[in-house]
C-alpha cells in the first residue's frame, strides 16, 4: 500500500535511493483517520479539574488590584491564581532560547499572567480551577480587577512616533547592540551593511522603491491551545500539551515556575497545527499553579476567540525597499527599512526579516535597517518563515517594477540576478550550493508559465521567496526487535508526517523497508533533548539523527554477525539489507540476524544525536499565480496556481507537496483576506473563523507543484527543510497578478476587494470616475 502523487519532480542530483522518494502510508495514519489519535484537548485524568483564564478587556491598562474572594466562594471553585503567584525571575535580563528566537523570562512570565499591566486585549490576568468548565467560566465573572485604562497604540509607525503611549517603563532602545538609554517603544534597531550603497545607487540606470504595510495575521491552526498539568506531592510536575517542542515547553514552564528542568516532564500529545504559534507556552504554567494549589490535575483549553486575541500572531509591519539596476539589468544596490510590531513584548522576527530581505538576489551593495517595536497587540511569535513574507512582498514588487523599466520578462530579470553559490548576503552569510536559479528556470520552463491567459481582467504574477532553515539539536534512539523490525523513538513532535520522513531515512540507511520501522514521539523523560518542530528542521536534523542511529545499529549488528561467524568484525560488511564476510563466504539478512540478538549479547539499541551548525540548506520557492478580478466587486478569483520549491531531496514527495501547497495557501490568505481588524480602543473586532477568514476549499483551485531537488551538501541525503519558504511568495505574486489584470498597484495587505475597487476607481480618469 503506497500513497499516490500528482506533482512533478526535477532532480538535479545524480542519486539512487531505495526508500527515499517513495510514498509509503504514514505510520500514524490509521490513528488519525479513525479518530483514535489523542490530541491535547482529549487528555483526561482521574480527578481532573477544569481551568479557565480571565483576560483583559482593555488593550492597555494598569492593574491596580485583583480581588478573587467572590470567585473562590462559588461552589465548585477550587483555586484562583494570578500573576502574583508566579515567582519573580532571578534577573530581569535572564533569557532562554526557544529554538526560533530567544525570549526573556520576565516577558514570558508576564505574558502568561499579567502582573503590573495588561498590554493587550486578551492578556491573561487570572486563572480558575473548578469541578467543571462551566463553573470555572462563571467564576471568571466574579473576579474583580481594578484597571486604570490607558491609551493603547496598535500601529507600528504610531508606536515609533515621539510622544506615543509607552508600553513599558524602562524599555530603552538598543541601537546596534548598544543601549541608548532612551525610553521608547522601539526595543532595538539593527543594521546590516554590504559594500557601498551610495556608490551602488550612483551606478544605477534605474531605481524603484516602495513602502508596503502588512496586517497582523494569525497562524490559524484549527486546534486551540491546551494544557493539562499534574503537580505531584514529591514536587515534580507532569504536563500534557500539544506543543511544537516538548523540551522547549519544558524549558519555558520550568523557567516561568522557577523549577529545575529535571522536575518538569512534558508529554507531547498529537498537535493540531502550529506553524510557529505553538512554540510558546500559555496555559501550562497557570494549569500547573492550579494543580499545585488543589492537589488535583487541571486541564485548560482555550476558546477560539482567546486563541486569536491571546496567542500568536505574526507582526503587522511597514517595509520600505529601494533597489537600483544598471542599464544591462544587473543590480547595483539595495536599501531596506523594516519595522515590525512585536506585540506586547520585544522579540519579533524582524531579525529574520533582515536576513531574508535581500536573500534571493546578488546585491553587490546593500543596507538593511530593522526595528523591533512594541504595540498593544498579543506578543507576536513565529509564523512559517517568520518575517520573510513581509519583506518578499516589498522586494518582489520592486523587482517587477525594475523589470518593467528595463523592458524585461520578470522571470528572466530575476534569473539575471539570482543568488548563487559563493555569494555573500548583506547579513554576512555566504551561500553554499542553493537552488534559487533552478527553481526560477523550472518555473520559466513550466507549462503553466508558457500558457496564455484567456480573458479580460485576468493577470499573472510570479514571485520568489526564501527561508534559511535551521539545524539545532535532535536525538533519536533505535531498538532492534527480534523479528527485524525497529522501534524508533524521536524527540520531534510530529506536526505533519515527520514520523515517516524520519523513519524513511533510518530505513534507507539500513536497507530496510519503511514499514519495518515503528516510529514514535518520545516525551522529555524518554528521549534526548530535541529542539522545536520549527524552522523546517525536523526532516533535516532529526532525519540526520536517525541516519546516525542507523549507522550505530549497523556497527553493533556487524559485531553480532562477527560473533555468530566467529570472525573479526573488520571482516564483516553490510549492504542492502545483508551482512556478509568480505571474502563472500558467509551471508545473513538483517532480519535473520535480528533473530539472534538475544543469544549474542542482548538488546541492540542505536542512538543518534546531532547539532548541525554548518550545512543547513536554505530553500527557495517560486509561485506562479493566475487570477481574475471582478471589476464590479474587486473579488479576486484564483484561476491557476503553481508552487515550485527546492527540497534538496524530497524524502516523502507527497508530504513535501503538502508543505508547498499548505504554505502557499496560507500566503494566499495573508495576501487577500486575513487581518486583525482593530477598533480605536485596540479591540480585535473579528476574533472568529467567520470574520477572520482563512481560505476555504471553495476559494482555491488545485495547487500544482514542481519539486526541485538541488542536493544540500550539508546533509547525508541532501535534504533541505521545505516547511516554510512557500508562504513568502504569494502576496507579491498576487499583487503582480492584480496589477497585470486591472492596472492597480496595491501596497497594503490584505488586498481586500474594497481596496481593489478603491484603487481602480482612483486610477480612472476623473470624468469616468464622476460618471
Amino acid at each position, binding site marked *: 500500500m503506497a*500513497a499516490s502523487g500528482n506533482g512533478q519532480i526535477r532532480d538535479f542530483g545524480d542519486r539512487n535511493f531505495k526508500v527515499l522518494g517513495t510514498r509509503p502510508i*504514514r505510520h500514524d495514519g490509521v490513528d488519525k483517520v479513525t479518530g483514535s489519535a489523542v490530541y491535547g484537548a482529549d487528555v483526561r485524568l482521574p480527578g481532573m479539574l477544569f481551568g479557565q483564564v480571565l483576560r483583559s478587556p482593555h488593550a492597555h491598562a494598569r492593574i491596580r488590584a485583583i480581588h478573587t474572594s467572590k470567585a473562590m466562594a462559588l461552589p465548585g471553585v477550587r483555586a484562583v491564581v494570578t500573576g502574583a503567584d508566579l515567582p519573580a525571575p532571578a534577573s530581569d535580563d535572564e533569557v532562554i532560547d526557544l529554538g526560533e528566537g530567544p525570549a526573556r523570562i520576565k516577558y514570558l512570565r508576564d505574558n502568561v499572567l499579567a502582573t503590573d499591566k495588561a498590554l493587550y486585549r486578551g492578556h491573561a490576568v487570572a486563572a480558575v480551577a473548578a469541578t467543571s468548565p462551566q463553573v470555572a467560566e462563571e467564576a471568571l465573572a466574579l473576579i474583580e480587577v481594578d484597571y486604570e485604562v490607558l491609551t493603547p497604540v496598535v500601529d507600528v509607525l504610531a508606536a515609533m512616533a515621539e510622544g506615543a503611549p509607552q508600553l513599558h517603563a524602562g524599555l530603552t532602545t538598543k541601537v546596534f547592540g548598544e543601549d541608548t538609554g532612551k525610553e521608547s517603544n522601539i526595543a532595538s534597531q539593527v543594521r546590516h551593511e554590504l559594500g557601498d550603497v551610495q556608490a551602488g545607487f550612483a551606478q544605477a540606470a534605474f531605481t524603484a522603491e516602495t513602502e508596503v504595510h502588512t496586517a497582523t495575521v494569525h497562524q490559524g491552526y*484549527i486546534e486551540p491551545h491546551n494544557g493539562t498539568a499534574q503537580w505531584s506531592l514529591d514536587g515534580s510536575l507532569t504536563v500534557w500539551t500539544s506543543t511544537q517542542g516538548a523540551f522547549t515547553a519544558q524549558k519555558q514552564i520550568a523557567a516561568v515556575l522557577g523549577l529545575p528542568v529535571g522536575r518538569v516532564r512534558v508529554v507531547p500529545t498529537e498537535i493540531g497545527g*502550529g506553524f510557529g504559534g505553538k512554540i510558546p507556552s500559555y496555559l501550562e504554567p497557570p494549569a500547573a499553579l492550579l494543580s499545585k494549589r488543589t492537589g488535583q490535575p487541571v486541564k485548560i483549553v482555550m476558546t*477560539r476567540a482567546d486563541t486569536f486575541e491571546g496567542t500568536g500572531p505574526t507582526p503587522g509591519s511597514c517595509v520600505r525597499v529601494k533597489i537600483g539596476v544598471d542599464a544591462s539589468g544587473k543590480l547595483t544596490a539595495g536599501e531596506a527599512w523594516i519595522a515590525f510590531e512585536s506585540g506586547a513584548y520585544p522579540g519579533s522576527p524582524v531579525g529574520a526579516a533582515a536576513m531574508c530581505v535581500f536573500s534571493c538576489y546578488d546585491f553587490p551593495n546593500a543596507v538593511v535597517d530593522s526595528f523591533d517595536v512594541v504595540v498593544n497587540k498579543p506578543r507576536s511569535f513565529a509564523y512559517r518563515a517568520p518575517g520573510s513574507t513581509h519583506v518578499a512582498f516589498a522586494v518582489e514588487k520592486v523587482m517587477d517594477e525594475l523589470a518593467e523599466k528595463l523592458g524585461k520578462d520578470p522571470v528572466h530579470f530575476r534569473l539575471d540576478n539570482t543568488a548563487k553559490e559563493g555569494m555573500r548576503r548583506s547579513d554576512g552569510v555566504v551561500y553554499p550550493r542553493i537552488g534559487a536559479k533552478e527553481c526560477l528556470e523550472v518555473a520559466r520552463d513550466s507549462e503553466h508559465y508558457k500558457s496564455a491567459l484567456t480573458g479580460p481582467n485576468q493577470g499573472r504574477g510570479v514571485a520568489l521567496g526564501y527561508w534559511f532553515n535551521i539545524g539545532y539539536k535532535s536525538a533519536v534512539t533505535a531498538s532492534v526487535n527480534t523479528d527485524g523490525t525497529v522501534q524508533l523513538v524521536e524527540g520531534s513532535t510530529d506536526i505533519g508526517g515527520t514520523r515517516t520522513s524520519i523513519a524513511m531515512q533510518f530505513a534507507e540507511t539500513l536497507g530496510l523497508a519503511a514499514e519495518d520501522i515503528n516510529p514514535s514521539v518520545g516525551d522529555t523523560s524518554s528521549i534526548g533533548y530535541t529542539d522545536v518542530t520549527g524552522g523546517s528542521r525536523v526532516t533535516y536534523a532529526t532525519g540526520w539523527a536517525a541516519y546516525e542511529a542507523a549507522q550505530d545499529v549497523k556497527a553493533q549488528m556487524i559485531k553480532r554477525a562477527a560473533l555468530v561467524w566467529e570472525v573479526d568484525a573488520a571482516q564483516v560488511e553490510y549492504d542492502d539489507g545483508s551482512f556478509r564476510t568480505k571474502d563472500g563466504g558467509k551471508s545473513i539478512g538483517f532480519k535473520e540476524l535480528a533473530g539472534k540478538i538475544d543469544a549474542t549479547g542482548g538488546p541492540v539499541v542505536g542512538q543518534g544525536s546531532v547539532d548541525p551548525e554548518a550545512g543547513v540548506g536554505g530553500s527557495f520557492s517560486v509561485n506562479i499565480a493566475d487570477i481574475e478580478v471582478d471589476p464590479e466587486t474587486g473579488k479576486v478569483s484564483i484561476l491557476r496556481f503553481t508552487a515550485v520549491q527546492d527540497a534538496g531531496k524530497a524524502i516523502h514527495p507527497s508530504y513535501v507537496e503538502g508543505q508547498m501547497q499548505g504554505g502557499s495557501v496560507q500566503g494566499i490568505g495573508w495576501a487577500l483576506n486575513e487581518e486583525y481588524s482593530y477598533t480605536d480602543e485596540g479591540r480585535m473586532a473579528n476574533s472568529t*473563523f467567520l470574520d477572520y477568514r*482563512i481560505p476555504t476549499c471553495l476559494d*482555491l483551485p*488545485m495547487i500544482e507543484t514542481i519539486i526541485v531537488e538541488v542536493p544540500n551538501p550539508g546533509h547525508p541525503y541532501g535534504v533541505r527543510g521545505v516547511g516554510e519558504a512557500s508562504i513568502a511568495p504569494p502576496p507579491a505574486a498576487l499583487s503582480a497578478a492584480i496589477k497585470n489584470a486591472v492596472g492597480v498597484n496595491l501596497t497594503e495587505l490584505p488586498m481586500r476587494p474594497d481596496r481593489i475597487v478603491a484603487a481602480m476607481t482612483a486610477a480612472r480618469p476623473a470624468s469616468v470616475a464622476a460618471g
Partner: protein
Amino acid sequence: MSKIHVTCQINGEPQEFLCEARQSLLEVLREELGFTGTKEGCNDGNCGACSITLDGVLVDSCLVLAAEAEGTQIGTVEGVAGAEGLHPLQQKFLEHASLQCGICTPGFLVASKALLEAKPNPTEHEVRHWLAGNLCRCTGYDKIVRAVLDTAGQGS
C-alpha cells in the same frame, strides 16, 4: 439543576446520557461519552472539525444542543470504519496524504462521507462547495479534494 435524560443511537449502538440544558452535543460526545475523535476547533459553527451526522444530515455538533439528540441516529468519525476495515475514504485520505496535523480530518471524513452518500459522483466544484464548511490550515485542500474525487471514481 436537574439533568435531561437522552436516549439515542451513536454509530448504530444504543446510548443514553444525562445532560444539562446548556450543553452542546459536541461537549457531551467528547466529555461525557468519550467520543473524542470529534474535534472542537471554534465552538461556533465555523470550522467543521466537530462535523457529525444527525439522522443522516451533516451538522456541526457544537451547534446542536445535546438534549436535541433524543431519539436520533448519530454518526461520528469513530463509526466511519467498519468491522471489515477502513472506509474507502479513509484509505484514500491515507494514500493521497490528505492530512498533515490531522485535527480537521475527522470532520472532513464525516462531511465527505455524507457528500458521497448524497451525491455519489460529484464534480470538483461540488466537492469544494460541499466541504467549504470544513477548514483545514495545513494542506491547502488539494489532496483532500483529490482523495474525495478518487473515492467517488471507484464507486464507493
